[in-house]
C-alpha cells in the first residue's frame, strides 16, 4: 500500500505565543516548532500499515523552509520519502487554498491512501483531509480510531461524540483523518536518524503547482480572547493558597 501522510509543523506546545504587530499571525522568532500532534498519530498509523501490508510511506508537508524538519523526523521514524511544498506565507491560505495546493502536489503520483491528523494545533480548521478527498474525487472517513485493511478495502472505526463509535467500510483509494490516541507513537531510533540522511526530500514551490484559487475567507486579526468570566487569582505559598482556596469554596462559592 502506498500511503501519503500530510504533516504540519506547528508552534511547540509550550511556546510562549506573541501576536505579530499586524495582528495577522504570531511572531515566529524565538519560538520552537514541532510536528502537529494529531499528524504524528497519522504518521504512526501509516508506518504500521506499511509494516503489515508492505508498500511505501511518503511524508508531505507544506510551509516555509523550517517545515522540512518535520519531514526529516518522519523519515527518521521510517517514512521512505519526503515531499516539501514550500511557501513562506502558508499561514495566509484559507483551508480550501491549502487543500488545493496539497491536492496538486499529491496528484503527481497515485496513492492508495492519504492520511492526515484530524486537525492542527495552530489554526485548527480541521478541514484539510475532507477537502483533499473532495478535490481528489476520493471517498473519506474522519476521526478514525482503528484501521483494518483487506482486499483493497478498509474497515475503519469512526469516533462519534459521547463515547459512540461506528465501523465504516471505505474502498481504496481513500482519505482518512486520524484521531489522536489511535496508537502509541514511536520514537526515532539512532539507526533511523542515520538512515534518514540518505532519504530523498523533494521540494516544490507552491507557486509552481499552478493552483488557481481565490480566497474564500480571511483571518482579519488574531488576538488574546477577552475574558468572559472574572477569575479570582489566589496567590501566596502552596500552603497559603490551598487554605485560601478551601475557605473560598466553602464560604464564598458554597460548594464544599
Amino acid at each position: 500500500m502506498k500511503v501519503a501522510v500530510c504533516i504540519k509543523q506547528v508552534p511547540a506546545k509550550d511556546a510562549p505565543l506573541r501576536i505579530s504587530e499586524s495582528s495577522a499571525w504570531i511572531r515566529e522568532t524565538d519560538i520552537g516548532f514541532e510536528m502537529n500532534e494529531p499528524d504524528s498519530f497519522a504518521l504512526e498509523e501509516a508506518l504500521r500499515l506499511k509494516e503489515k501490508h508492505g508498500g511505501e510511506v511518503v511524508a508531505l508537508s507544506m510551509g516555509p523552509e523550517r517545515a522540512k524538519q518535520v519531514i526529516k523526523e518522519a523519515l527518521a521514524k521510517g517514512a521512505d520519502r519526503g515531499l516539501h511544498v514550500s511557501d513562506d506565507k502558508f499561514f495566509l491560505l484559507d483551508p480550501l487554498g491549502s487543500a488545493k495546493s496539497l491536492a496538486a502536489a499529491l496528484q503527481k503520483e497515485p496513492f492508495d491512501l492519504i492520511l492526515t491528523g484530524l486537525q492542527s494545533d495552530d489554526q485548527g480548521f480541521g478541514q484539510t483531509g475532507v477537502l483533499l478527498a473532495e478535490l481528489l474525487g476520493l471517498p473519506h472517513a474522519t476521526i478514525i480510531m482503528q484501521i483494518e485493511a483487506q482486499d483493497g478495502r478498509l474497515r475503519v472505526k469512526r469516533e462519534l461524540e459521547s463515547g459512540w463509535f461506528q465501523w465504516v467500510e471505505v474502498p481504496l483509494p481513500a482519505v482518512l483523518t486520524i484521531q489522536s490516541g489511535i496508537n502509541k507513537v514511536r520514537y526515532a531510533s539512532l539507526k533511523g536518524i542515520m538512515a534518514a540522511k540518505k532519504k530523498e526530500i523533494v521540494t516544490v514551490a507552491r507557486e509552481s503547482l499552478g493552483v488557481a484559487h481565490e480566497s474564500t475567507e480571511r483571518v482579519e486579526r488574531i488576538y488574546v480572547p477577552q475574558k468572559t468570566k472574572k477569575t479570582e487569582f489566589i496567590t501566596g505559598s502552596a500552603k497559603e493558597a490551598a487554605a485560601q482556596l478551601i475557605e473560598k469554596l466553602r464560604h464564598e462559592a458554597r460548594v464544599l
Partner: protein
Amino acid sequence: MNILLITEQREGKWNPVSFETLAAAQQIAAQTGSQVAAAVIGKGVRGLAQDLTKYQLAEVLLIEHDLLGRYTPDGFSIALRQAIAQSKPDLVLLPHTYQVRDFAPKLAASLGKGMIGDCVGYRHENGRVIFVRQMFQGKTAADVAFSGTPPWFASFQAGAFRGDQIQSGASAAAITPVAVELKPEQIRTKPLELFREAKQAVDLTQAPVLVAVGRGIKAPENIPMAEKLAKLLGGELAASRPICDEGWLPMDRQIGSSGQTVAPKLYLALGISGAIQHVVGMKGSRTIVAINKDQNAPIFEVADYGIVGDIFELIPALIEALEKNKAE
C-alpha cells in the same frame, strides 16, 4: 440575506446543538434583516420537521430519502447540494459536530465555497458578519470574514449560543419537501452499526465534584495523589483526553467533546491547559477552579478561581488542609 440552518438528528433524536445554532441563526437574522429556513435531513424525519414549525422560520425544508437513513458524507453532501440549489441561501449555518466536520467542508468545496468552522460567536459590524473562532488551542481568538460570493458556510461550537433563546413564530412555518435524487452507487462508503465501547463503569455526570487531571500530571504514578484529593472532596476523578489516550485512566473518565459533558457544582482542573475540546465538556460547571503553571493557559478563561503554580506542591497542600479540616 437568506440563512439556512442545517439541523442534526441521529436515529430520530435531535442533536441539541442544532437548537443552539438555530438561536444563533435567528440572532444574526434579526440584526441583518434576514430570514431563516431550517432543514431536516434523514429518512422518515417528517415528525422532526413538524417539531420545528413552531419556531420563527420562513420555512422548514424536509430532505428525505431512503438512502439518507444512515449518515454518509456522500449521501448528505449530494442531498444538501440539491436543497441549497432549491432554497438559494446566502449563509448556511451548521452545528459544529463530528458529523458536520465530516461532510460540511466537502459540501462547501463541491460548490467552490469556503467554510468557517468551529465558531464561538459572531459580530455584526458595518453591515458585515464577522465570525469569531479560536486558534492555537484556545490561546488566541481570530476574527474571520468571508470573501467572494455566497453561499457561505459556517458552524458554531456546542455551548456558543443558548438553545432556550429560540424565538417562536406567530404562525406555524410551512414544511417544504426537497425532491432528492440519489442513487446507491453515488455512496462510496458503507456505514455499519453504531456501538459504544466497554460499559461505563462510572457516571461522571452524576458526581457533585470532579477533580480532573491533564498533561500537567506528567506520569501515571502521580494520579493516586489526585484521586486522594477527589475522595476528600467527595468527588470523582476525571481527565482530559491525552491522559486517557496514554491509558493512564480509562476512557469513561474523559471529559470533553469526545467524552462526557458534565456540569458538577465544583470542577477542579489540575494541569489542564484548556483546549476547546476539553472546555466544551465542562464549562457549564457551577464553580471552576484551575491550577496551572502557565498563567496564559486558556483554562483560566473559564475559571472562577485560579492558582498559577505547581500542581505537585498544591495537590499535597490541598490534601493536608482538607485532612486537617476534617480532624478539627
